[in-house]
């Protein structure tokens, strides 16, 4: 119940925010906020959603999601027309973007396959190591990925007669994608596939005894998460007018985890809440504390949340509402992640 309130609130806020900003701030500042705070929050929220989806319904904390998002970004950058340097090139966005998403889904399936026989903390370590391996590969390979420099000039398609990077086009398209994916996740977990997945999270042996293939379901979950992360990755690449290995390094990888945890690992909407909080902190850290010490600040917030409210901000809200039912449910879902 608390989650539904939070959910509606967040969606309403995200839909109307640009207009509120225009009313309050001068035009160029409102545009800056829309694209660089809200837009960035939504895009990274999508990537965080892929992590939260796996955590909430699969019981896995995967640190490979940022890398998988980057796979989609590289897929687009390598194939799209106009990128510099042009590795393959020549394709319009209508073809390059699906290729990127395909690459991300495939990478998700691959990560799932490698990690399929592991759980819990081993999964965390292995996904981290895999992500870093891909990062190092991309950083050193010139022929396919242009190494340390990355690939630039991925400007995005023209939509509705406007440049994709027009703040409002970018924001509302990203928001639409986010809402679609979010709705998809909510729908998926009520389908037989989703129910089996949650069953596997709670007690894999029993579900296997019922005749379901545990490994296949897990791998498929990773594939779905890969697709979601890929959507975020494509949007992020267009936002950054290109992609470089730095986007998938250790820092960004941990940042996605921070967003998911701050928002609440037991609730998909937490991905967007956490991402919004993170982005606001990141943009305005200088005013609050010291721009150079942003990492200390966000690290402290992260630590406090893990110590005090493992279910993040959404959990705090639930508790504040005093709705014992919702609180118990969220605590249970986190506890189930810790089951051996």
């Amino acid at each position, binding site marked *: 119940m608390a989650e539904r309130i939070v959910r509606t609130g967040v969606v309403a806020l995200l839909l109307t925010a640009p207009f509120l900003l225009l009313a309050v701030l001068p035009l160029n500042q409102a545009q800056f906020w829309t694209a660089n705070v809200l837009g960035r929050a939504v895009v990274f929220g999508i990537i965080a959603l892929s992590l939260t989806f796996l955590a909430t319904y699969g019981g896995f904390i995967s640190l490979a999601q940022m890398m998988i998002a980057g796979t989609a970004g590289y897929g687009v950058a390598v194939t799209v027309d106009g990128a510099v340097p042009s590795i393959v090139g020549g394709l319009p966005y209508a073809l390059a973007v699906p290729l990127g998403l395909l690459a991300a889904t495939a990478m998700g399936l691959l990560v799932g396959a*490698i990690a399929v026989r592991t759980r819990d903390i*081993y999964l965390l370590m292995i996904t*981290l190591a895999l992500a870093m391996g891909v990062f*190092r*590969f991309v950083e050193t*390979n010139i022929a396919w990925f242009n190494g340390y420099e990355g690939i630039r000039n991925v400007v995005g398609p023209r939509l509705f007669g406007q440049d994709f990077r027009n703040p409002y086009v970018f924001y509302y398209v990203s928001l639409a994608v986010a809402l679609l994916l979010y709705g998809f996740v909510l729908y998926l977990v009520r389908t037989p596939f989703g129910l089996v997945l949650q069953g596997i999270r709670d007690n894999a042996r029993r579900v296997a005894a019922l005749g379901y293939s545990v490994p296949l379901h897990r791998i498929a979950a990773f594939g779905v998460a890969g697709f979601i992360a890929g959507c975020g990755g494509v949007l992020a690449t267009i936002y950054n007018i290109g992609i470089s290995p730095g986007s998938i390094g250790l820092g960004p990888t941990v940042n996605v985890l921070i967003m998911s945890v701050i928002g609440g690992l037991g609730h998909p909407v937490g991905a967007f809440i956490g991402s919004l909080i993170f982005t606001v902190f990141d943009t305005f850290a200088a005013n609050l504390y010291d721009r150079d*010490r942003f990492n200390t600040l966000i*690290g402290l917030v992260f630590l406090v949340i893990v110590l005090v409210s493992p279910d993040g901000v959404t959990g705090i809200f639930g508790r504040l509402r005093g709705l014992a039912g919702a609180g118990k449910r969220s605590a249970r879902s986190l506890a189930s992640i*810790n089951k051996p």
Partner: protein
Amino acid sequence: MGLAATVVLNGLTLAALYFIVASGFSLIFGLMRVVNMAHGTLYLVAGYVGYRVFEPLYDADVWWAWYAGLAAGIAFAAVAGALMQVLLLSWMQGQELRQALVTIGISIIAADQVLAIFGGTPRQFFAPDAIFGSTQVPFVGGYPTFRLVQIGVAMAVGVALWLLLNRTRLGMMIRAGVDDREMLGACGVNVPRVGIAVFALGAALCGLGGVIGSTAQPLALGQDGRFLLISLVVVIVGGMGSITGTAIGAVLVGLAEQLGQALFPTYSVILTFVIMATVLALRPQGILGRG
């Protein structure tokens, strides 16, 4: 012949350093079931603190400057590790993922504070003259003495750990605690205190690795991430909780890195990860891992 021997020896000496650092990680996991994601940060902090102690003594031409730095680094790391366990991790006993998240938070804060306090300049210890310079090694010729010292230290650590675990009372308690924690408590052993001791020991090993590593290679920000990753890979390949497994993992990773650098420098970095992925595919618990 000479070149091949040199490259192999390089790989073994690098493996020695990796073993020292990863053994702490493996110990803490094997016995406490805590994945200490702040392990790399302990390396970094031990190096910087050790250097702070070392530098004024070195400038004053004191012969034991390096040893003092080494002792300071180890001591600081051990205390930091014990504090982490006592203040933060002990009340989450059993919640492995939550503990891992806490250590991630600590590592972010600590790494940033290190940058704030010590600045961004890289630094490197001067090894004492007695072990600086080169030694003659058969087939190889002149070889940096310090790298040979690394092997010596690693072997000493390995033997000491084995003796500790298999020949002392503490070791017996630790091994019992791994199998059945509650039973150990029921036998009257102060389990939390054993836990602190183990964490401190694992952190101290990391601190040792930090100072030795910072004598062989420059100490700079980014080394924390690097050594955390290496420890992860070494322990995944060799098997969690097994000291011999860690040694095997370290040798594989060290040799792969150096051979890769000599044979195909562009892709040497991913050779390590390919080995890891292969081991995971064939034997997910690691080469000598249990269950």
